[in-house]
């Protein structure tokens, strides 16, 4: 059994795929920060940001709607923001009654709500695109170059590698449980909630032990190849002229959004 469902990278030949991962990380973060800075109702800037996302989609050769389709992931969280519809003072738009309470939607509330959603939606699309055009190990290298402490990037690299091994293991455990979740004729299947939680807890404990012992074996494998507490890597990336131009262009575009948003 092979669990590759977690890979978000999409193999393609495109300018964005070839761009240095550092550039992609920096531009994505700048874009998300810029979104957070845009005032409510900066429609022109939102539109420009959206164009930026669409253009990136096109450049990535993944298709214009690629990130759009996957961006619904942030939507459920919108429930949390729904209260701003009623709570911000402004001109009432409509009032409706739910059970015993009256709710009044104000224009300022609506503006805030829509703006929050747009910001989230634009940001999440950019993040989706980042991992679709950058292989995860390259992303980790970029973080290393951007001065994220080595201990964290190393943990992340191991996490990524063993994510697949251990989730495979979890799925096989879950499967084993499922396979024996039977019912005798005429009786209700399954024990109480606490018993079921105990089974899940035992699985977690079992998985912990195996992970722990695996880490021992990995350590042995590392030592066998000369590891003495320090990790060395080759730098596989080099900034080319195109990378600098792309960064310059993206910064200009993001600055333009900020200016437009405040006009």
């Amino acid at each position, binding site marked *: 059994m092979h669990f590759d469902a977690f890979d978000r990278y999409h193999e393609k030949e495109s300018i964005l795929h070839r761009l240095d991962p550092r550039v992609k990380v920096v531009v994505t973060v700048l874009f998300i920060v810029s979104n957070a800075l845009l*005032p409510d109702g900066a429609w022109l800037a939102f539109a420009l940001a959206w164009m930026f996302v669409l253009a990136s989609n096109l450049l990535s050769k993944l298709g214009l709607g690629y990130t759009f389709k996957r961006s619904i992931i942030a939507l459920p969280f919108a429930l*949390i923001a729904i209260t701003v519809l009623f709570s911000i003072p402004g001109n009432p738009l409509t009032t409706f009654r739910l059970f015993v309470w009256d709710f009044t939607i104000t224009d300022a509330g609506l503006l805030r709500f829509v703006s929050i959603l747009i910001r989230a939606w634009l940001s999440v699309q950019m993040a989706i695109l980042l991992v679709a055009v950058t292989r995860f190990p390259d992303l980790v290298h970029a973080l290393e170059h951007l001065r994220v402490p080595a201990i964290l990037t190393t943990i992340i690299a191991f996490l990524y590698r063993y994510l697949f091994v251990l989730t495979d293991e*979890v799925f096989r455990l879950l499967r084993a449980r499922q396979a024996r979740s039977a019912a005798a004729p005429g009786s209700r299947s399954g024990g109480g909630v606490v018993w079921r939680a105990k089974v899940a*807890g035992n699985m977690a404990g079992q998985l912990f032990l195996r992970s722990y012992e695996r880490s021992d074996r990995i350590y042995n494998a590392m030592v066998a190849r000369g590891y003495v507490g320090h990790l060395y890597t080759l730098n596989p990336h080099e900034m080319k002229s195109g990378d600098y*131009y792309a960064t310059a262009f993206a910064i200009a575009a993001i600055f333009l959004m900020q200016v437009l948003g405040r006009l």
Partner: protein
Amino acid sequence: MLYAPTPLHIPDGFLNLIVSLICWAITIVTLGFAISKTNKALGEKQIPLMGVMAAFIFAAQMINFPVAGGTSGHMLGGALAAIVLGPWAGMLVMTAVIAVQALLFQDGGLLVMGANILNMGLVTAAIGYGLYRSVIGQSKGVKLGMIGFAAWLSVMAGALLTSLQLWLSGTSQLEIVIPAMMGVHALIGIGEALITVFAVGFIMQTRPDLLGEGSESAKASRNWVYVGGIVALLVVLISPFASGDPDGLERVAIDMGFIGTGLDAPYEIIPDYTVPFLGETALSTIVAGVIGAIVVGAIIVLVGRGMKAKS
């Protein structure tokens, strides 16, 4: 669903810049401590151990159990990570997990990652470890009971912090978000508590040596008990105020110096979601001009480098 996003992973866009940056600042300082502590205290063996443990926490979050009506319980793992690895390593492991969830699955944003790490990684580990340390040397039953309470409370604390951040950002209304989040997470926390208790019980039964009870000095241990206890106390004190009487929370918050006094609505710390220095004053025009110049300068430098680099 292979991978169920929990309501604690805040996406980008739901916290404003200032709150995001404050959370990042707290997170970075804490992580800085954690890194220097782990670098000092632990051998070379710790690198693969923490990496695989991070993968373990990630995978363990997928172990669920049917509760009722098609819903299922699963766990966050912050308390478990801290109990089995110690607080600092536990925090680093949780940070890696949250970072990968955000980077790879967009479960939680990038700019708000500082907040997410704070809520789900740092506070949960501190509470989990602190409360667990307070019962070291007691009987197994007492230990497991306290572990369950700690796990439950760690989820509640995460939910409380998330609610406060959303409120400070002007995204949610306090008197709605707190009862909603705390209510939901009181239930989620029970799942967390059960799985954590049974998982630690399993380890106590099979490899008690891994729980390393004697590993820390008495003083460090006592400090963690204080940290855990204080955070726990805060959560217990704040949540009923918050859910029952929002004005009460404001009073508590102000008394404790949480926020400056005299604010009409607390989320107007950053009025209207704009950054203060870009108002309609002469000063802001100058600032805007300077920023513009910096941006243009950066672009020129980059283009210059681009011409120099070989293509």
